[in-house]
Structure formats: C-alpha cells, structure tokens
C-alpha cells in the first residue's frame, strides 16, 4: 500500500522554497512602501500568533471547566464570555465561540471543509493536517475512519457529531475528563488537554501518559 505519498508529492516541485520566499518578499516590500503594511505591526502580529496564542489557552479553559461546574455551565452557555472571563479574547476576529461537550455517548469533531476556519483565539493557528485536503474531505463523510487514523476508537453506539464551521462561529470541543484525575490540580489537568482533543480527533491524555508535559503537541518544544 502506498503509504505517505502525500507529504512530498502534494507540494509542486516547481515552487521551491526560494521562489515562494521571493514572492512573499516582493509582496511585503510593495505593501510596506505603499504604507499599507506597517513593519512593526507585522512583527507584533507574528509574535502574538507564534508565541502568545496557542492551545495552552484552550487547555486552561478546559481544565477550569473540569474543576469548576459553575464555570463549565457558563462556558457551555456562552463560550465567548466564559473565555473572556479568564482574560483571553475569544479571537482577534471578534467572533463567537461555541463550546461542544463530549460525553460517553456523544463525540464532537470540528472541521472546516471549505477553507480552514479554526478557533484562533483559544487554540492558536491550526496544524497542517487540519488544513489538509485529506482531513477537510474525509471528516464529514468518514469521521470514524479519520478518528481511527488518529488512534481514537469509538464504540459503535457513540454518536459522532461533526461540526463543519462554514460561517463565523468557531467551535471548541470540551473533551471528557479522563478517569484517575480526581486529585489533580487545575494546572496538572491542563497538561492532559491536547490540541487534538479540543478539535475532537482525540481524547484528553490519560494521567499516566506524561501528564506534566505542556499541552499543544509541539508548541512547547518549539518555544525552547
């Protein structure tokens, strides 16, 4: 079986890194010279999305909801307000956040089939896989196959609800709190909440499997 031909073949070889680098440089330079892009604002914006916003925000929100039933109620009722409550704007776009609760009987998965809509304010920028044609194509038609690819096996009697974010609301999945976490602090709990679990392609980590690592599947490593 032809395993991973996607990775290299889907990038056209006629567009080497240096060409696209030149393309973006030319664009930046004309826009700066026309006064449409302020270089300082640009640097600040990049810094925000590369270093400040990320899945650690969502993890904090989830851990709070796991620890505080009243907060969880508010979060499910008005995601935007409840995330704001913790000091985070729900997204630069001023859009509404809706939080979807996973239970033993209902599993939610988020996708954007038409482009790449994603809750930037609570999860940062989406990973490549979320934006890939493969995920966008299959998440709505074959969510069980997709979850299996992520190592997430669900019983047949679990109802899967896929959310295709085609408008200006953004969705965040509230994963189930893993068993065996009764005595963990909120900060420890946040360490179990991965980005993938808040998109809905995975469950939160179980406490044995490295509870104390930072959330975000690589965010942490990248920052070091």
């Amino acid at each position, binding site marked *: 079986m032809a395993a991973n031909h996607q990775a290299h073949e889907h*990038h056209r070889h006629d567009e080497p*890194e240096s060409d696209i680098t030149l393309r973006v440089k030319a*664009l*930046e330079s004309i826009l700066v010279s026309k006064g449409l892009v302020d270089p300082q604002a640009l640097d600040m914006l990049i810094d925000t999305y590369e270093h400040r916003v990320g899945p650690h925000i969502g993890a904090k929100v989830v851990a709070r909801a796991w620890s505080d039933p009243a907060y969880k109620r508010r979060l499910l009722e008005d995601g935007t307000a409840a995330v704001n409550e913790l000091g985070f704007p729900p997204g630069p776009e001023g859009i509404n956040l809706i939080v979807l609760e996973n239970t033993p009987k209902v599993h939610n998965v988020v996708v954007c089939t038409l482009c790449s809509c994603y809750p930037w304010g609570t999860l940062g920028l989406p990973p*490549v896989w979320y934006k890939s*044609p493969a995920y966008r194509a299959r998440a709505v038609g074959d969510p069980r196959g997709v979850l299996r690819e992520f190592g997430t096996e669900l019983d047949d009697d679990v109802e899967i609800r896929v959310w295709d974010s*085609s*408008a200006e609301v953004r969705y965040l999945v509230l994963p189930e709190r893993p068993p065996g976490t009764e005595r963990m602090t909120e900060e420890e709990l946040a360490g179990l909440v991965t980005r993938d679990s808040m998109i809905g392609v995975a469950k939160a980590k179980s406490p044995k499997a490295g509870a104390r690592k930072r959330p975000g599947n690589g965010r942490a490593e990248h920052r070091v």
Partner: protein
Amino acid sequence: MNGVHDLGGMHGFGPIPREENEPVFHADWERRMYGIARILLNQRVFTLDEYRHSIERIPPSVYLGAKYYEKWAIGATGLLLEKGIIKPSDLKGVKPINLNPTFSLSAKARGDSIFKHPSRAVKARFKPGDKVIARNVNPRGHTRLPRYVRGKRGTIQFDEGVFALPDANAHGGGMILQHVYSVRFAARELWGPEAPARDSVAIDLWEQYLEPEPARSSNGRGRNGRGRR
C-alpha cells in the same frame, strides 16, 4: 462556486498528513505571509469573503498542490492586482499566478465586516426544530453552501445571529444581513444508507441557503433518507 476547495465528502487524498512537534510556522515566508494577510484584512483592504474567494479561484491543480500559506500569497497577490492596489511591475519580476475570473470580480468595491451584527432589525425565518432543505443552487461566485448538503434535509439546531451574506460581500455586493443557523443533517441523509445511523453533520448556513421542508408524502421519504430505499 463548485470549486476544488469544496472538499467535503471527497475521496482520493490519501492519509491525513500529521507532523510530530509541528511548529506554528515552517519557514519565515509563512510567518510574513500570515502577518501581511492579517493586516490587510484588519485594514479592510479586502474583506475576508473576498480573500476566501480569491483563494478558491486559484487554478485547481495549483490549489491542491500548493502549501497552505502559498495559497494565501497567491490569493492576496491576485486580489491586490485585481483591485488595482498593486501593479504587476510592482512585484519585481515575480510572475503572479492568475486567478480564475468569475462572472463578477471583486473589482474596486470594498466589502465590509463579516462579523456579527445586532439581530433585532432582521427577522428570523426559522426557529430551532424546524425541518429545512438546503437549496439546490450552483452559483458560480462565492458561497458558503457546500455541495454535499445541497438538496438534503436537515433540522435547525440554533440561531447563530445575524451576519452579512458572503455570496454578496465577496463580490462588492454590499451587506445583505441574514440570520445564520446551525443545521444538523443525519449522516444517512448526506451519504446514503451505509452511513452510521446516529451520526450527523452540523453546518452553519445563511438563511437564504435554506427553504422549509415540504410536508412529507404519505408513503414516506423519511427525513434521513431511509424512506428512499
């Protein structure tokens, strides 16, 4: 637009390309491109609807072969050229990739905000629990009604508020304010009798994408398509 960007339900793209320890950006040009696009959007040089549509208009084989932020670069460059904000000669020898023209280019008209508007002024045609059909329409311009739900029967879950219609706003057509609804479709209604019985897809649809479901015939085409067997 029934473009290759409308990917829901497609096959043939292989396994999902996952990367361990993925960085936020993979190269400096990605970083810059993200920031440039965000600033142009913040400053309303173009609207998000126009920008999305410019990316949809990238030639299909390029769209499917390009890296993510490469599409952002091609779309933004094409849109700025179409609007006359930059000229080809401004690009210092970099040859832009032409976007597919549509029946109505975004041209110089500036669209407006895509964000939530106060909903008092706009009446809602539907309420939670209403049975609806997503219209079977095939517009050549921008739309957020994907092919896989067209003609299918669903149920209104909740009202998301009032937003500008992308189909107009992407083409300089101004702000047509409508309610947007979360509509749930049974997987079997979308994909046929082999789909799992309880699974569903919810999607956010502008009011004009929907019409009320006509009353059922007595011999029963069920809402989720089971009646069609």
